[in-house]
């Protein structure tokens, strides 16, 4: 029973990625991009990397997708269609968001057996980040600081 989640997520991700390329408007593309991220998170969740899936949703979908959407709105010339006429049929949009929700619910309820048992990786993450890989995380922090200089 659980075996159906990963194929479904993979298929959905592929479909929405394909849709993204051929969207007339940027809004449509953004929506499809969001759907793909969610499917990817579901896939990761299916593979057992629950923490990564969560992080993905948090950082990718949360921070960057929003950033991109804001940029798309600012970069539109006034008078162009807003979200409502994004050229994407309403049913697809709903499907794009509902399917990952369903998958997540199924996984959480333990219906889809997680592929790998090795969940220990998640636990060690914190200790690794600030143990042997302290230099790497420090460097990434600096990188983000310098990237922030872009806006000045």
């Amino acid at each position, binding site marked *: 029973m659980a075996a159906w989640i990963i194929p479904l997520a993979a298929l959905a991700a592929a479909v929405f990625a394909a849709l993204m390329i051929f969207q007339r408007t940027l809004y449509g593309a953004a929506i499809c991009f969001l759907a793909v991220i969610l499917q990817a998170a579901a896939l990761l969740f299916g593979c057992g990397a629950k923490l990564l899936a969560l992080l993905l949703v948090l950082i990718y979908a949360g921070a960057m997708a929003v950033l991109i959407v804001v940029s798309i709105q600012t970069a539109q010339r006034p008078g162009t269609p807003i979200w409502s006429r994004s050229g994407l049929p309403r049913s697809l949009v709903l499907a794009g968001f509902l399917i990952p929700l369903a998958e997540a619910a199924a996984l959480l309820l333990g219906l889809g057996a997680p592929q790998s048992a090795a969940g220990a990786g998640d636990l060690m993450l914190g200790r690794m980040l600030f143990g042997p890989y302290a*230099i*790497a995380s420090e*460097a990434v922090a600096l990188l983000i600081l310098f990237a922030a*200089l872009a806006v000045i």
Partner: protein
Amino acid sequence: MIWLLRPPLELLQPQAVLAVGALCVLAAGASRRVGLGLIKAMAGASVLAALLMLMTTPFWAASPPLLSSDILGWAFQGLFLCAALPLLYLMKPADEIPPALVLASVLGMGLIAVSGNLLMLFIGLEMMSLPAYLLVARSRSPQALEGAVKYFFAGSAAGAIFLMGMALHFAATGALSLEPSTDPLGIAGAFLMIATALFKLGAVPLHFWLPDVYEASDPELTAFFSTGLKAAAVLFLTRLAPLAPPWAMAWAAALTILFGALVALRQKNLQRLLAYSSISHAGFMLLAVAAWMAQGRSPRASLAVFFYLAAYLFMSTGTFLWLKTEGVSEREEMRGLGKARPLSAAALAVLLLSLAGIPPTAGFAAKFLVFWEAFKAGLYVPLILAGLGALVSLGYYLGLIRDMYFEEGTKPLASAPHPARAVVLACAIASILLGLMPWL
């Protein structure tokens, strides 16, 4: 004498100094009370301090997961710092951000130098590239933004390819370290990573971003790119060396040399011409690295790689800074400079002859060492193609000298003395002194 940091971190002493320097620059800028000149001085001081710290860091050290350095890495760090000095000295920043970005970029290169595994490499790569995009965006030329966008998209695409390669490599070997793997997935991953390295270096099929970026940015920034970034790319390539086949590199090198030299023949804009010439020189560096890899990473060959970059540092910096001091951008403006400004024309002539590889200069000593190593490595046909490439490149170097000396001048140039002129003269003299290296 490791007095500052405990063993695992002593490798990072120069980088630490740079990071602190960058933060101080930013802080000084934010406080609005410190003048721009002082900020530039602070940046320059931090680079010099990093150079001093470099003296005290050991050549051979490795702390397992992330860091490992060898003599080549150590020497290249010296090159990166030297490349940044003229830029900091000559740039006229609107505010404190560009000096900080330069320090950030040099920090990124330093990270590549000491990195032990792929993750650290990627971080170093990004740390080096992101400030570079912003520096290009802040250049004064009208197409600066266009250059920055092109540089960004090409750089990020290369980064994405590197990530994919890393993923494949990780899947094949189960670890992010640099040992070569034999199963096809690992090899595919390795080749994707090599593609990124070649992209950064400017090897031919992947070079199309380079001329636009070099033309878009200011001359002193281009000098930094052509010396600093190219050295970092070479180092990046040597780090990935165990994974790559020497013969593919040699053929890519020969193709790069010939293509770079050929296209440069008809360029009208001088910076674009020098961009293609730097692509040709990148081909020579690639040939040197290929020879180094084919000889099982022999120290003599690594000396050839390092010497080529050291010589190229002086030649390229001198040439680009000459463009800045004389304010010349098109090839037509070069006519008659020999009479109008004898001293600077003579300096450029020496630099151009050095770039072409005519004997008494450093360029020749560098090319000679590379030829020698390539022959020892058995790369005969690429060697001959490289020689023909050098011949074609002589075509436009001599063409420039011909325009300067043999044509009648149209521009009445008697420009005011410029601080950079001393740097250009220093580079010219260094080119000749380094040329005597084989006999010293």
